[in-house]
């Protein structure tokens, strides 16, 4: 038995040493999984113009052939129109057929917007969804504390004034539950096309989204295979560059594209920029001590311990999202 020596922790530790080799490994496995494990002819992918779905589409085209991949744009009332333009550009670049399925009608049927806006009005009675914008988020400083973050609701008035209040639990849950109709409606549409074509649904979550529970159960978490589910975000970017993903997509700040006001994923969930998040998560997962991490990240050992505790809490509190239905009775 050989004991592998642990690499010294550094800011370069997540640099992919041989990108071509990693891409070959992923695409070979993806081809095998879709064809031999799932017994499907190809794959459908929801494309948002973000880097994760773009890399997933490019890898799928390499693995399955462009003709066996369908990219689906799934905009709704609150989506940024730029998402569609970029998604179309991506599909053209990789010669993948793309279609657009607007899900606003389905969401109106579910009363997604009405249910969400009702909860927002409980907090801000003046909120008018036709002229105001809204988002929910957490404070960045929260990550250095052992206390879990508390969500706040922000509305933006027609004149651009921002107002924020801490979100009471009932309203928070209603806003999130109503908004999750978006991801779940998209998942239904993806499976419609997948079943129609005898294709698999190729999911787009990256490692952080899966491990930290930043996905909607049976929404964007509903897929047959997740080829970038083990990649850190900075590694997704490395592959994006190597594969020639359009620069506008690479340069775009990752957003939730869920609420009417612009909101980055960092602001909504992660509380840290991706380059720092990746390194800290790697250190946490690979049992580097706060003493080894502190000088590299320029953070105190106390802060690192707090961040690691937060990571541990996130894994624990989102376990339910990753669980299959319990049936060992």
């Amino acid at each position, binding site marked *: 038995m050989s004991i592998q020596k642990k690499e010294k922790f550094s800011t370069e530790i997540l640099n992919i040493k041989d990108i071509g080799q990693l891409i070959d490994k992923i695409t070979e496995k993806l081809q095998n999984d879709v064809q031999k494990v799932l017994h499907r002819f190809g794959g459908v992918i929801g494309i948002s113009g973000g880097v994760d779905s773009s890399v997933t589409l490019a890898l799928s085209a390499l693995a399955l052939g462009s003709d066996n991949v369908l990219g689906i744009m799934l905009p709704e009332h609150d989506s940024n129109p730029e998402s569609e333009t970029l998604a179309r550009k991506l599909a053209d670049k990789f010669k993948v057929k793309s279609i657009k399925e607007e899900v606003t009608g389905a969401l109106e049927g579910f009363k997604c917007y009405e249910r969400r806006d009702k909860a927002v009005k409980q907090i801000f009675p003046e909120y008018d969804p036709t002229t105001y914008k809204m988002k929910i988020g957490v404070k960045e400083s929260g990550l250095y*504390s052992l206390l879990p973050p508390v969500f706040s609701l922000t509305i933006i008035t027609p004149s651009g004034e921002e107002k924020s209040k801490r979100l009471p639990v009932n309203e928070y849950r209603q806003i999130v539950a109503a908004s999750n109709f978006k991801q779940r409606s998209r998942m239904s549409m993806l499976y419609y096309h997948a079943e129609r074509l005898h294709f698999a649904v190729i999911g787009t979550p990256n490692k952080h989204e899966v491990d930290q529970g930043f996905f909607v159960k049976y929404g964007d978490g509903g897929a047959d295979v997740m080829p970038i589910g083990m990649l850190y975000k900075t590694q997704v970017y490395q592959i994006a560059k190597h594969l020639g993903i359009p620069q506008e997509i690479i340069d775009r700040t990752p957003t939730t594209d869920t609420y009417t006001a612009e909101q980055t994923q960092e602001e909504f969930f992660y509380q840290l920029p991706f380059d720092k998040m990746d390194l800290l998560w790697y250190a946490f997962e690979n049992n580097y001590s706060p003493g080894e991490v502190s000088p590299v990240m320029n953070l105190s050992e106390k802060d690192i311990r707090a961040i690691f*505790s937060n990571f541990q809490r996130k894994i624990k509190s989102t376990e339910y999202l990753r669980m299959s239905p319990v049936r060992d009775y």
Partner: protein
Amino acid sequence: MENLTNNKQKIKSYIIKNTFKNSNNILDSTLLFQEGYFDSMGFALLLEFIEEEFKVSPSDDELIEENFESIDAIAGFVSRKKTAE
């Protein structure tokens, strides 16, 4: 003093009822967040309980470990807020 003991008991009962944890394992000094008693939702519910039960509204600046890390800390925080009113 009696109030403080009483409040600690109320907080402990709330925690046991809402976290499904074994009452024998929780002491007044147990570090609730370090031990994983509460996630984000649980903490928000705890804040609502404190507001309703003790008529105390913690501000955003007061949401720090020193005020919420244990039953002792929460009871102390409630008592300080009540005195300041």
